[in-house]
């Protein structure tokens, strides 16, 4: 199934709304065409000296046109808002299923943001592409019927109509599709250049590279503009062609009038004026379609990739114990990539506190991903409470393990809602208790709205250390027997880091703890320390 069809099939959950929107749109179109046709007809009859009639039908058609248009807009938006919600929920569910391992542990916020942009592009699919195209499709037989009745030759004017309504938009879609990749690449290049200049601002200033960086950004910008210019130029050309074809069609109708019925010709000219007005927007819709097609492909691909680790067919029941053991585990990300580790065995007994140390990039986070079943070992087993995790359902397993990583996200929401993610049923006293344990309660009490303070854009800003401690509070609230922390203090200064671990020691007394760090601060309470060296773990002093 093509991605676009897959996205469109999501709409079918609200067939009534969509059908009504389409019907009203068609009604509005018909009324509009009829209004012009009748005007022409009455005028022509009057001019030709025909019987004087009071054009009573005319105001009614006008009224119908206005009302249908209003209805079309309202119902169309109602329909599209429903589809829009469905699309997002579907996308979210799909990503949640497939991407936790693929995207979760790595910092791929930008990749995700790009996907969200793609979803936004798809919002225009119904109202800006589908409805006008359906209108043109339905207008075609209607016009054929009317014109054919007048004169056989009159059908000829449908040639320019089809050209404008179908051929030009199709060309535009093709052009946009070809161009979408180019523009995407250019935008990515521009973003990288801008990010480099700003992220490396210190280096830029110190090495007096302002001019160089600005020139680089401008060069990337010129590439982007060139790619966009290409499409804009093609779009302009196609639009102009469509315009000439439409006016040519009208001229053709007039000329045909000299051979056939003059009154019908006058009406036809006005009908065509209205009909072409209805389809002249389609080349632009074609451009949009070309972009939407690419976007749909990416969105569907992201949402419909299966889970990274298959769920067991017959899941074993969750063991009562919470010890974790690696037994001869080997892992690599792909057959052509080197092993991250080979034949790794390590025991994390229940209630023990362990640290795994190693330089960044050595594969420490891979251990966390394996325990959480985001990836599976190439060989060997990981046992949780004595059972191979491959036999355990991922969600039940993750409920036993509270994970706090460097990418753990604080949401743009209230502090309360951020905490409730750990335990949706927790009452306020419990929230304050974990905030106290994480030693961030005072800072939050000092905020004017307390737990209801909004975090993130336009809200309360917590310092880096406070933010990490809030994330810790949420992790503690999960009340899971195992705590798995992967560089929880990345990006914080040493004093704040020490402070965090002091708090952490006290708050996690008695639980099974695994810390994954690149170095110790010296204040962690630990039973055993392992060091990552060359694809395996060796015991370090501790």
């Amino acid at each position, binding site marked *: 199934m093509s991605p676009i069809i897959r996205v469109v099939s999501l709409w079918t959950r609200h067939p009534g709304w969509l059908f009504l929107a389409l019907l009203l749109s068609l009604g509005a179109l018909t009324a509009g065409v009829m209004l012009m046709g009748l005007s022409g007809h009455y*005028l022509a009859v009057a001019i030709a000296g025909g019987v004087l009639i009071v054009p009573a039908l005319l105001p009614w058609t006008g009224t119908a046109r206005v009302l249908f248009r209003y209805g079309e807009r309202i119902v169309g938006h109602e329909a599209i808002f429903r589809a829009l919600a469905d699309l997002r929920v579907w996308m979210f569910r799909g990503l949640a299923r497939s991407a936790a391992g693929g995207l979760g542990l790595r910092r791929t916020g930008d990749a995700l943001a790009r996907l969200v942009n793609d979803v936004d592009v798809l919002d225009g699919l119904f109202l800006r592409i589908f409805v006008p195209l359906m209108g043109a499709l339905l207008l075609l037989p209607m016009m054929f019927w009317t014109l054919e009745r007048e004169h056989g030759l009159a059908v000829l004017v449908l040639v320019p109509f089809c050209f404008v309504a179908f051929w030009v938009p199709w060309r535009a879609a093709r052009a946009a599709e070809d161009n979408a990749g180019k523009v995407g690449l250019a935008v990515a290049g521009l973003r990288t250049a801008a990010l*480099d200049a*700003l992220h490396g601002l210190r280096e830029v200033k110190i090495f*007096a590279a302002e001019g160089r960086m600005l020139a680089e950004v401008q060069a990337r910008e010129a590439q982007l503009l060139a790619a966009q210019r290409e499409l804009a130029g093609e779009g302009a050309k196609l639009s102009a062609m469509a315009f000439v074809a439409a006016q040519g069609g009208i001229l053709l109708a*007039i000329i045909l009038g000299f051979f056939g019925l*003059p009154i019908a010709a006058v009406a036809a000219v006005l009908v065509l004026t209205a009909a072409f007005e209805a389809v002249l927007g389609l080349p632009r819709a074609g451009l949009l379609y070309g972009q939407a097609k690419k976007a749909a492909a990416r969105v569907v691909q992201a949402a419909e990739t299966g889970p990274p680790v298959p769920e067991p067919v017959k899941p074993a029941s969750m063991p009562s114990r919470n010890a974790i053991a690696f037994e001869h585990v080997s892992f690599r990300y792909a057959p052509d990539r080197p092993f991250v580790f080979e034949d790794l065995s390590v025991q994390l007994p229940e209630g023990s506190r362990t640290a795994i140390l190693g*330089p960044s990039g050595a594969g420490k986070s891979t251990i966390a991903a394996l325990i959480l079943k985001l990836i599976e070992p190439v060989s060997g087993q990981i046992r949780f409470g004595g059972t191979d995790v491959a036999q355990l359902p991922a969600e039940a397993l*993750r409920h036993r393990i509270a994970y706090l990583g460097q990418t753990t996200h604080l949401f743009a929401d209230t502090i309360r809602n951020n905490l409730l993610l750990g335990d949706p049923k927790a009452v306020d006293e419990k929230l304050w208790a974990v905030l106290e344990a994480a030693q961030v309660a005072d800072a939050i009490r000092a905020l004017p709205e307390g737990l209801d303070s909004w975090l993130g854009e336009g809200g309360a800003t917590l310092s880096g250390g406070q933010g990490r401690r809030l994330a810790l509070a949420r992790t503690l609230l999960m009340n899971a027997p195992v705590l798995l922390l992967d560089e929880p203090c990345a990006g914080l200064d*040493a004093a704040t880091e020490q402070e965090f671990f002091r708090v952490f020691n006290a708050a996690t007394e008695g639980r099974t703890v695994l810390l994954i760090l690149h170095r110790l601060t010296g204040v962690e309470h630990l039973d055993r320390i392992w060091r990552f060296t060359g694809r395996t773990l060796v015991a370090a002093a501790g």
Partner: protein
Amino acid sequence: MSKTTKPWIKSEQKLGFQAARLSLLFGAVGTMCGVLQAGAAARLLAALLHVQRAGLSAWVSALVFILAVLARAWIQLRNERGNFELGAAARRRLRGKVLSALLALGPAGLRGRHSAELAATAVDRVEAMEGFHARWVPATGLAVMGPAIIGLVALIADWRSGVILIIAGLFVPFAMAVAGIGAGIAAKKQFVAMTRLQVRFLDRIRGISTIVLSGRAEEEAQALGKAAGELRERTMRVLRVAFLSSTALDLAAATALVLIVIRFTPVLHGAHELAPTALFLVLLVPEFFAPLRGFAAVYGDRMAVEAVAEELAALPEAPAAVPAADIRAVAAHGVTLAFDQVTFGWNESRPVLDKLSFKVGRGEMLLLTGASGTGKSTIVDLILGFLEPRDGRITINGAAVDDLVPAARTRMVGWIGQKPVIFAGTIEDNIRFANPAAGGDEVKTAIRNAHLEELIASLPQGIKTPLGEGGFGVSGGQAQRIAIARAFLKDAPLLLLDEPTSHLDPAVERDILESLKHLAAGRTVILATHSTQAMDFAKTIGAKRVDLDALRYASWRGVMA
């Protein structure tokens, strides 16, 4: 909306209309061609109905029709391309301004703001201004000029029909303002609501692994659906009113047409000379309303500006250039750096540095120690010129640093921080970043001095290996070696080391310190650190020490000499 936003949009608007003058002129000519075309079509139709002799005049009309169509097509083509260039020029201007301001402000000026967000401002928010300049400005200009021209022509051709058209035309903005009460506010609300949903969705997607690993995916999916449903209900309430303004446009167009037809039908009977006029005016109706429809269609582009203007308008202005007077350079052979009673604080009441004085002689090393927050990085930033002291003087070889030509000051100082930034580019690009004009031998020496030879030899593409996003991921130690190579290549007499080893594990730290020792030889060095290994290293070199913790407790008196 903040106070700066409105004037900012106003000034953008003014610039936009200035730039669009040619486009608007062509637009007006296009409208006149449209009038000509309608006239020609009316004459042709009249000829068709045998009220005029189909002779020479019909041929002339057909020719005028064709020429007018071709002219309009050309103008349309020209204007679409030209309007794209308007948008492109505006984006170039805005992006240049934004980036120049950010680059001029430097890291201290942007303190507390995330670079990714600033990059989004420079890329996406500027991109969002395209619609305003490329579409909204031309469409708005035309929405005023087009109907005015056609209304005038209609008045001349048949004053009654002209009046009908003009009243209908005036009704549109009137209805937009009154009935829509509007349309403006409503659409704005809808846009804001839509933006909120998008922000929420983006936020949840960015944090999706946190949600999944907390086992809350299904709840969040339902909450998202519910939020979208609420948004729909709220928005639809608003839209029901907002769409009345579009309906007013439809109503005006339909009424004008019907009234003109009704006005002519009775009098046409037997009055053949009126026929072309009647047809002409009927054909003018769609032409009259087309620019107004065009204007309604670009409303979203105007709204998009509201969403980004706040961020763009709030960007600080680039600081004024240093006055030309009293600027001097100092000889750069060996540097003596001194702080004389320097005070600095982010706010008046809590100074980070209070009357700090010290002096580092040529080729000496100064060790700065103290817990984080005691001002180590502040001292480094003051020397780099990213911060200005509130009080006191910083001198290099006796000359106050503010008197130095900024370029000369930059040339004199080398710096290595906690985590060097690796730019998208090859290893060579990254090292040459320090000095693009450096010769091949200089780069080679820097690589050797930084002990990067082994790494480069192990890579298949060697020095041309791409780094940065999507490229080879360097470890913390390797990145620091690149920074050291940069420092060698820059060869500045004053070297600032700000926690150069705090992100490294002990074995790598020892290695890096060894390289730094080599780099430090013959230079004046300031080393800020709290690593014991680094402190030991400084002691072996015979560094002086300023302990900021001790100073803090020692009643804030500047010591050291």
